């Protein structure tokens, strides 16, 4: 069970205009693991993620998620796949025209037939899990940066998806919030068996949560494998990242 591949990326390349942003990216992520994608700013992490999410057309290479070749899905299949994943976007991605409560309930409201009271209870639970109380009726523009991130994370996991993607959820959080975020992620993995793909730079965080890392540099993979192999890696960049 532990070794079931849930994401497989093979030879993914992407060029925007004249710029080659990704070159021959290949890696896998496994069920029930936390996979960390890391690399310098501008190295292409978000671009990889957006390819995984099917937000960019795949120009070259192959991406499969939960055994679906994502460039070969019809509308229904794509919808089914999206229902199995939650996404946290780098800049939040909450709908600014809706309150926090409406944002977090949106997936439940649209994709289930639960009644409004039950939805409200589920949403309040998720918000509480993120230490957000009393924000249900506030608009995203009224929250602080860190609260916004936590609200967005609450929305990403409101459906308890088996697969969770997070683009830098920890950036800009204070060390204490960061530690509790890490704890939450570990809990999601352990209690719900979620598989989590997370982009982050925080070394402390990576050491706490990562099972496996994917190291990207200028659009190329320079290391992929278990975290303990990364710590012993001879590759200069990887070594420098963990031992500064």
């Amino acid at each position, binding site marked *: 069970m532990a070794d079931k591949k849930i994401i497989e990326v093979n030879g993914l390349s992407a060029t925007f205009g004249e710029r080659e942003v990704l070159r021959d990216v290949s890696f896998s992520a496994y069920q029930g693991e936390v996979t960390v994608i890391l690399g310098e700013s501008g190295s292409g992490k978000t671009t990889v993620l957006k390819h995984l999410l099917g937000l960019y057309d795949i120009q070259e290479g192959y991406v499969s998620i939960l055994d679906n070749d994502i460039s070969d899905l019809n509308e229904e299949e794509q919808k089914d796949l*999206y229902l199995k994943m939650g996404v946290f976007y*780098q800049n939040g991605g909450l709908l600014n025209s809706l309150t926090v409560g409406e944002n977090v309930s949106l997936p439940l*409201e649209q994709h289930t037939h639960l009644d409004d009271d039950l939805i409200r209870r589920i949403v309040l639970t998720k918000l509480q899990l993120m230490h957000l109380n009393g924000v249900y009726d506030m608009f995203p523009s009224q929250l602080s940066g860190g609260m916004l991130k936590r609200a967005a994370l609450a929305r990403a996991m409101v459906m308890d998806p088996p697969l969770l993607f997070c683009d830098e959820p920890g950036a800009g959080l204070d060390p204490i919030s960061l530690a509790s975020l890490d704890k939450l992620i570990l809990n999601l993995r352990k209690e719900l068996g979620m598989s989590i793909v997370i982009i982050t730079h925080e070394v402390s965080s990576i050491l706490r949560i990562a099972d496996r890392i994917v190291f990207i540099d200028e659009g190329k993979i320079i290391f992929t494998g278990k975290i303990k192999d990364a710590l012993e890696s001879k590759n200069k960049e990887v070594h420098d990242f963990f031992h500064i």
Partner: protein
Amino acid sequence: MVKPKIHNNSKDPDKDFKIEQSTLYLKYSLLLGDLDRWIPAVQEYIKNMQDPITEINLDGLKKIDSAGVAAILQLKDELIKNSKDVKIVGGSPSIRKKIGLFSYQEPPASRDRRRMSFFESTAESFLNFYHDYMVRYFTLAADVLYWSVTDIFKSRTHRKGEFYNQAVLIGVNAVYIICMLSFIIGLVIALQSAAQLRNFGANIYIVDLIVISMMREMGPLITAILVAGRSGSAIAAEIATMKVTSELDAIKTMALNPIRFVIVPKMHGSIITMPFLTILANVMGILGGMLIAYLYLDIGPEIFINRMGETLYNRDILIGILKSLVFAVLIVLTGSFFGLNVEEGAEGVGKVTTQAVVVAISIVIIADSIIGLIFY
């Protein structure tokens, strides 16, 4: 070497540099504040020289900053054009270190583009325009119209109450301004023509003039232009902002269709309200005309309405309504199209908003004339 005459307004040019046997000796300091004086002086000097300079010597230089380094390297690039090689030599370790630190290297140029001829570039920009705008506009139109029809009775594809919100935003909130402006326009058209008609003793034709021009032309057009200005821009700005802040991506990965979730309710809202707004504009415009007819041409409301019954055909009313529906679709489509077209960044939002209004109004006017031609 001939030492040329130099016309230099700085008191002592030798203070900054001197040139001997193809070597340029730099002295003292080369800081940002010195460059305004230094660059013209050096250039003047070099222009009048016969032998090219092949060496820049930094031994005398005491102080330099990043701007100074940039100036030296720039000078070197210029000098290289005249001589095969220019070397930068000497300088204290600290100066050399700064030069290393501050030198800017052009990133390797990506593939040289062949210069295109005038015809080629015109053709290419036409093709780009065709592909970037026309093809994508029609693709979007097809998508939006398809979903607008299939979603008429489905509310689960967007939020409850969203259609109502949009109808209020696009339609109801525009009522006051549309009433006011069409009343004024009816008034003005009547006023302008009253004097002429009176000269010919053709007073009663004011009714035909007002009714037909409002119903067929001005009513739908005024409404559409106002709605394009109010809602076309709002739609473009809203969608562009949603795209820039990943909201559209988020909608998609929540297994919702952004077109059905965001655009279709707007389409429904505007299709439902535009005909009513247009009828309202017609009525107000005719009221304006009626007022002038009464005040200036002695045509009482009763006569006006009687005559109106004779001149007005169903056809005119229907054409007005048809136009308003077409305009409703075009305004929402254009606003959405430009919103989706935004390039990353907040300034992109402002840009597409303006484009959306200008293009929406132009498209409305063009469509108006096409419909006018068809149903002439």
